[in-house]
């Protein structure tokens, strides 16, 4: 197990190396540059800007310089946000994005499984119909529609939750709407997934065995159904977390959440190379780590899988 973990962790390095190298050259292939403005920067200033950020050097030298910096976890200065280093921007935003992501994932998983259980155990009763309808809405309504609708209802009409901004302005209730919006599609999918998989497990032979042993229905569900039924949900956690991380880019704009998603969009639009690179590295790391964690959880849950 430990060896497996170390091997997987080491395999992150070549992956990251490829991601960084490709991104470095790809973003420089995109037309335009960090200093392009509608009102052109005068040539003299432009030259000084390029010199200041070492962009006058040959590309390969810039690449080596960048790789050297990144080994020291130094992402360099942001071209757009002149007062902040890229590290500062990431340090500000990452905890926010991570807490939003983790809370959303937790909501999606806990809520989704709970609803999945309720609707599977009440198959074809009203609870099930309600849950299935909610799931269909969740899966089919995009984030950028769901967000504003919730804002309108809870922020504008009922006035019980803030429309936007974060904990420092509104306290913990600022998390509710963005987290719920972000979690919703994944909640819905997990509810559907766990419902289907619980129903399948409920029909399985070993559940019949458990019942024939005289176990209470609650013990059957908690002890015998869930572990097997939740494996597909665990498998889905990887894609779900990636989805939530990507979705949070939209959600951050809609709810003015000061995470790393908004600077990501801005950096891409403004060709803020250093910031784009840092965002790519951070997002890649998050996704790689998330997948590793999911693999490990899966292995812990399913005794048939062994890590060697």
């Amino acid at each position, binding site marked *: 197990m430990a060896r497996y973990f170390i091997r997987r962790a080491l395999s992150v390095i070549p992956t990251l190396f490829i991601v960084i190298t490709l991104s470095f050259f790809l973003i420089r292939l995109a*037309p335009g540059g960090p200093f392009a403005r509608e009102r052109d920067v005068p040539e003299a200033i432009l030259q000084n800007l390029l010199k200041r950020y070492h962009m006058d050097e040959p590309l390969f030298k810039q690449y080596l310089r960048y790789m050297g910096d990144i080994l020291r976890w130094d992402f360099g200065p942001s071209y757009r946000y002149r*007062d902040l280093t890229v590290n500062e921007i990431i340090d500000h935003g990452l905890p926010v994005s991570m807490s939003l992501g983790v809370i959303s994932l937790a909501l999606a998983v806990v809520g989704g499984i709970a609803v999945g259980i309720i609707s599977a155990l009440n198959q074809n009763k009203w609870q099930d119909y309600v849950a299935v309808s909610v799931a269909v809405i969740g899966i089919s309504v995009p984030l950028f529609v769901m967000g504003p609708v919730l804002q309108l209802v809870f922020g504008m009409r009922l006035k019980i939750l803030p429309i936007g901004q974060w904990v420092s302005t509104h306290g913990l209730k600022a998390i509710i709407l963005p987290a719920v919006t972000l979690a919703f599609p994944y909640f819905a999918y997990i509810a559907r997934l766990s419902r289907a998989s619980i129903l399948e497990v409920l029909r399985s032979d070993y559940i019949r065995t458990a019942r024939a042993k005289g176990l209470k229905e609650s013990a059957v569900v908690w002890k015998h159904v869930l572990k097997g039924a939740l494996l597909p949900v665990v498998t889905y956690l990887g894609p779900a977390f990636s989805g939530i991380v990507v979705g949070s880019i939209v959600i951050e704009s809609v709810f003015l959440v000061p995470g790393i998603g908004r600077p990501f969009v801005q950096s891409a639009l403004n060709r803020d190379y250093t910031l784009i690179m840092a965002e790519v590295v951070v997002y890649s790391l998050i996704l790689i780590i998330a997948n590793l964690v999911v693999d490990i959880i899966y292995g812990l849950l399913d005794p048939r899988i062994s890590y060697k």
Partner: protein
Amino acid sequence: MRKILFALFALLAVAGLSAQEFTMVNGAEPTSLDPHAVEGVPEHRIYTALFEGLTINDPRTNRALPAVAESWSFSKDYKTCTFKLRRGTTWSDGVEITADTVVQSWLRKMDPKNAFQYADLPAMYIAGAQEYLDGKAGPESVKIRAVDKYTFEVQLVGPIPFFADMVSHYAFAIVPLHAIEKYGTDWVKPDKMVSNGPFVLSEWKPQEKIVVVKNNKYWDAKNVVLKKITFIANDDINVGYNLYKSGAADWTEAVPLELMDEAKLRKDFHVAPQYGTYYYIFNVTRKPLDDARVRKALAMSINKNDIVNKVTRGGQIAANGFVPPSTGYTPAKGYGYDPATARKLLAEAGYPDGKGFPTLSILYNTSSSHKSIAEFIQAQWKENLGISVNLLNQEWGTYLDTRSQSHNFDIARAGWIGDYLDPSTFLDMFVTGGTQNDGLYSNKTYDELLQKSRETSGNERYQLLMEAEKVLIDQDMAILPLYYYVTQNLIDTDKWDGWYPNPLNVHPWKFIRPKK
């Protein structure tokens, strides 16, 4: 428990309504708080709260009002401007501001090593500054000096009667060099920042908000009523609009196009002419756009009134001329909607009924409103001239590159909002080889007229500029003006005093206060 809660809510309600605190939806996260590094409207609004230059803008007319300078005067030829500094104005840490501070500040802005964008703006007007900026001369070549501790003198490249208006711009900011020296780039962080405006920085949460509080060391502090201003950073205009509507913000200026009809019914929605123009650039090096008759035909076959009334719907003003009208300046007449003449001109150019006319494309940066306008024009040209055009949208960075670097376009959407109230901010763009001359227009007469305007002043200068615009529009139709921008602001002026619609959309914070 319920009583306590109720009391808390009551308190919150009072605090929320507390009219000495002001919250605005400020748009994108500011790129910097350093006045010399900024560009853009959200940054400008924060700048006007934290800093003051030699002058500030009058909240109604945008003309210069005394600030760090209590008075100013021009030499007879309008080539030298002398500012008398107010005695005893200090930074928020108590350090005095003197004429030397101004000199050093301006030199910092133009120092080529600092590579500040917009450094070319002062360099364009101050004698000897361009050489310094280009690295061809040292700072001593810049013709600014401290005559004495409280007298600051600028020598200009020509007669520039609007120079005092111009120095309210952040490109002419005065900065606390002692603090910059001490803290380096960190000087703008909340615990270190020193400023001289009516407010000082109290809190900066990147991507979230900036909070400023009243500066008690401000020279006119007794006339500043607001105690606190919160600038909310947002990239989504729908949220901004919702924040305002829900009462969480007191001022926002962006209204989503699809909610325009709703916003227009509101009493607190202020639409006013803005010093800016939305236009299309013709790439005049490409056939058949190199033919002025073709360009005129294209211009005359667009019903611009329909664009503002049916497409943009936000009170914009259809424009035939390029420079927005202002006191003493009448824009070129241009050409109105006249499909018959348009067809005739197109036939003369060799494309009767649009036959043989190549399929051009309209380039715009990705946005639903640019798209709606382009689609409307596409339909008009089809209907009135029988020609087809493609629509080509590109994301901002790519679009800028196509438009200004490779010039690989036929017709491109553009917009320009004046930095200061003078026609030259528009007309300077189209001189041969100008950095914003993306359509590669070149006309000797035009260049000469503009050159001459730089050497004259007053009414004579305006005549030259009007003449130049006639060449640009009436004669050559080098660009196709579509409409004049308007400022759109949502702010309840029944509640707030000191806020007035104005052409530069600049609203100095010291005047804004709750109505009694």
